[in-house]
């Protein structure tokens, strides 16, 4: 199955891209995909946990991904 991965802020900068497609074997969880991407991209400059959102909602690490999901890796937020 194919899912889209979105990166933001320092993660997008480190990876030098904001969006890419990744081919996965089912079942893959949100946490597994995050760990895989972070091991490639690195977490330089990130203090705190990187959360995962699927189709614009936060999910637990154990959430099982489906074909076509939009998976966003959310580094610590700093709004306000």
């Amino acid at each position, binding site marked *: 199955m194919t899912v889209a991965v979105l990166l*933001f802020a320092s993660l997008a900068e480190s990876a030098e891209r904001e969006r890419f497609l990744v081919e996965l074997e089912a079942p893959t969880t949100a946490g597994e995909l995050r760990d895989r991407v972070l091991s490639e991209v690195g977490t330089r400059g990130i203090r705190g946990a990187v959360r995962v959102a699927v189709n614009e909602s936060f999910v637990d690490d154990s959430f099982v991904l489906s074909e076509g999901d939009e998976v966003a890796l959310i580094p610590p937020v*700093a709004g*306000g």
Partner: protein
Amino acid sequence: MTHLVRRPISADALLSAVADDAQGALTLFLGTVREFNDGRQVSGIDYSAYEPMAERELQRIVESARQRHPGLRVAVEHRLGTLRVGETSVGIATAHAHRAPTLDAVREIIDAIKLDVPIWKREHYVDGSREWVAAVPVPP
């Protein structure tokens, strides 16, 4: 209502959005870009967001405040783009027949924004450097 804006935030417009003759209390919170952060002199901040999700989270936070405080009126705007020192990055206006819900809700809303809304900021310093900023955890 769109909560993410790319123009200056108007305190008057936020207050007007929640005011009417049934309300006995109005509370306004403005978050602004401060000149010094961790001892470094800031010249400006770039705010960026995962925009569709940030809109949804802001709407969820507003609806949650309305449910906790029946009768509460709320207006929230967060600005994106490049802001200079002194400019307003976030504005929250609440109105209610009585003061307590307006004060409580403003605190709850700004704390929730800092926790859950996918917005990031990169500070620019007067020495020309730039850095992504991590949020300070909400104090107890």
